[in-house]
């Protein structure tokens, strides 16, 4: 690593391993690397490879049932961290080493304003509260949340996924740490914002001389942003394959993109069957947030006059930048949010007109894979129990039969056999997303609403999921509403794509395919 010779080291890692205290297989082993000050390291690997585990081990944030194996060396600058006390680790965290998490909703405090949360980082490391609060606003402006005073007063649930991610970035860079670990920092963002946020990370880093560890399953991002790459598979670093193996930009990255392009899907049947039966009809839909809110514009319509139809067996894509109201729309569609105006008809039934048992029965046919799929799984239940529940509550199967079918579904979404008995926190975020998908598919719905269904998946896995969904659509007439900022994936899967912007559908294409 040439850079290491010229510049002092920000981080030195030797033979880092992590295993469960229960003594099962190691989650991570034999990871070694040097990171020079201001340099950047990309970490890539399929979901479940140990990328997040590595980040948590570096931060000293491993859950209590996991521990770093003895013999590992971890040095931040000249400070040894592998044998540091919890108090030393705490003082280092936030000030010298910071992290941007994968699921921003889980990493933010739901009851505190954004400004307070950013300021908190400074306060716990000794800044006077007034100074910290003032600087928090500057920091919010620096990550593009302007006007900062308006955003600063909001609480996390009043922000879009992308905005939350930027709040986390503002917190992480608040004290200009020596090392920034970003765990899939841009999966929730649309491409334009993704670039913007990554540029922001780079700009903030340049000023502060911060070294970056960037975890991503997006090979393009890693290739573009990182000096060196660490490949992980099953918890072990693997040597880059192919002819360019010695270089800093190894070939598996390119191999993955080729593999991705090779899979092609045919357009949905609705393009060729204009008489297809309408399953979902949305007319002039308005959804407002009306909860008690710190900000003045609490009654703003997050969805403002959206209309579209979706036929059986059709795939409709919904794309739009972060904050366009995509997630709000999905929540209204599955009756998690009340409708303020307009109507939603599902197979002829007015969704806002039914409640109680009829609504519950209808839910079998109308399933959602939420954006924060991991958070949507009940933490104390195993994957198998969670998936079987969808069968049981709708009387489709019981007991051992339901569990057997749940295991089949988990297998179909590409999860290893061990996942069935695992609780959500024992799974990686990509694995949790697939559990959520398996659960949504269990009751054999007519319509599946997927909010960023592949956000946490690596390209191989994403292709498999796309193929599975397309197969279900073709064979069982499953209708899909796919929400994403990934234009490429949406266009491959969907026969029609609706662009959404600021709560409105920008242009409504007619029944004929427009892609």
């Amino acid at each position, binding site marked *: 690593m040439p850079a290491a010779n010229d510049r002092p080291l920000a981080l030195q890692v030797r033979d880092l391993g992590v295993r469960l205290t229960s003594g099962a297989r190691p989650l991570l082993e034999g990871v070694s690397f040097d990171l020079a000050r201001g340099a950047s390291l990309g970490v890539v690997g399929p979901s479940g490879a140990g990328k997040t585990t590595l980040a948590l081990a570096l931060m000293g944030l491993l*859950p*209590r*049932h996991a521990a770093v194996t003895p013999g590992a060396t971890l040095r931040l600058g000249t400070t040894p961290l592998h044998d540091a006390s919890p108090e030393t680790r705490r003082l280092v965290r936030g000030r010298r080493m910071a992290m941007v998490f994968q699921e921003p*909703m*889980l*990493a933010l405090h739901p009851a505190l304003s954004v400004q307070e949360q950013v300021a908190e980082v400074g306060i716990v490391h000794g800044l006077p509260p007034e100074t910290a609060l003032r600087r928090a606003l500057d920091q919010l402006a620096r990550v593009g949340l302007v006007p900062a005073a308006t955003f600063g007063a909001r609480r996390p649930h009043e922000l879009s996924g992308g905005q939350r991610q930027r709040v986390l970035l503002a917190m992480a860079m608040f004290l200009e740490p020596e090392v920034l670990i970003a765990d899939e920092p841009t999966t929730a963002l649309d491409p334009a914002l993704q670039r913007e946020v990554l540029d922001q990370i780079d700009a903030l880093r340049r000023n502060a001389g911060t070294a970056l560890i960037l975890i991503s399953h997006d090979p393009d991002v890693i290739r573009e942003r990182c000096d060196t790459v660490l490949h992980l598979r099953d918890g072990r670093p693997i040597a880059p394959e192919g002819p360019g193996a010695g270089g800093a930009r190894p070939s598996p990255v390119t191999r993955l993109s080729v593999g991705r392009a090779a899979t092609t899907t045919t357009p949905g049947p609705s393009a060729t069957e204009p008489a297809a039966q309408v399953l979902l009809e949305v007319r002039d839909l308005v959804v407002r947030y009306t909860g008690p809110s710190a900000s003045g514009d609490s009654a703003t319509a997050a969805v403002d006059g959206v209309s579209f139809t979706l036929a059986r067996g059709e795939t409709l894509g919904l794309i739009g930048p972060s904050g366009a109201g995509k997630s709000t729309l999905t929540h209204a569609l*599955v009756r*998690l949010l009340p409708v303020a105006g307009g109507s939603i008809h599902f197979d002829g039934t007015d969704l806002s007109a039914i409640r109680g048992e009829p609504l*519950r*029965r*209808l*839910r*079998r046919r109308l*399933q*959602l894979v*939420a954006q*924060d799929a991991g*958070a*949507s*799984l*009940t*933490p*104390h*239940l195993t994957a198998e129990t969670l998936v079987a*529940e*969808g069968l049981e*509550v*709708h009387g489709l199967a019981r007991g051992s039969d339901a569990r057997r079918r749940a295991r089949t579904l988990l297998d179909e979404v590409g999860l290893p056999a061990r996942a069935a008995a695992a609780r959500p*926190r024992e799974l990686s975020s990509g694995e949790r997303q697939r559990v*959520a998908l398996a*659960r*949504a598919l269990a*009751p054999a719905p007519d319509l599946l609403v997927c909010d960023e269904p592949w956000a946490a998946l690596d390209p191989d896995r994403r292709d498999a999921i796309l193929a599975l969904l397309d197969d279900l659509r073709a064979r069982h007439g499953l209708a899909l509403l796919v929400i994403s900022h990934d234009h490429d994936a949406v266009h491959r899967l969907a026969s029609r794509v609706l662009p959404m912007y600021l709560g409105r559908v920008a242009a409504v294409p007619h029944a004929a395919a427009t892609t």
Partner: protein
Amino acid sequence: MTARLPRGALVVLGAMLAAAALAPWLAPYAPSAQLDPATLAWRPPSLAHPLGTDSFSRDVLSRMLHGARSTLGVAVLAVAVSLTLGTLVGALAATARGGIDALLMRLTDALLAMPRLLLLLLVVAGAGTLDLAPLALVLGATGWMTTARLVRQETARLLATEHLRGARVLGVPWPRLLRRHVLPGLAPTLAVAATAAFAAAVPLESGLSYLGLGVRTPLSSWGNLLADAESLPLQHWWLILFPTLAIATTVLAANRLAEAIADGMQRDVDEGTR
């Protein structure tokens, strides 16, 4: 829940409960046997009677062991009653929301505003003498309010989580939603409520029995043992010291345990594992 439980508190509580359960086998004498009123009354601790004897020449150790049965038995039963009532009220309030929530919580507040001892005295005075089971019922019926508030708070929090929304979208019916997705999440809260309620019930039973309103002779309880010394407490110090020690260590241990469980919950929240 991954609380680190305090070993000392667990040993104390375990020993007390074991002593209560095994009293008939551990006690050297029958609890109400008057051994020899002429020569053996008011004896300070000795080898034959490690905790001394009382005015009727009864062995205090034997009475303490049997007293643990009534005191702890009443406390455990009272906890079961208050936990059941409190969970029902709290969960109902959080689930129903609106008017029912307001009604139940204002009722809870009103009851909480009255001193519990006064409530107890009213009931006991109205009912006259009470057996152990009715006494426990009354203790439970006046002690569910804190549990109800804790349970309401925690249920409301759980109902607002993403995973509850996930289960609702799946079409999980309400009873099952509460039983499988909410109740297990309540377990740590209930553990805190139970230990805290136990710590409150022990001195209450003792207080009532000391006043002659709870457990009455010939049955013994830690509270009515204290009453045996009332004529000359300083001269007959062993009649005061040992029951008081038993009550104090039990309450301290239960409070310590409640605190440790609450700390464990907080750690789980901090680590995001709940």
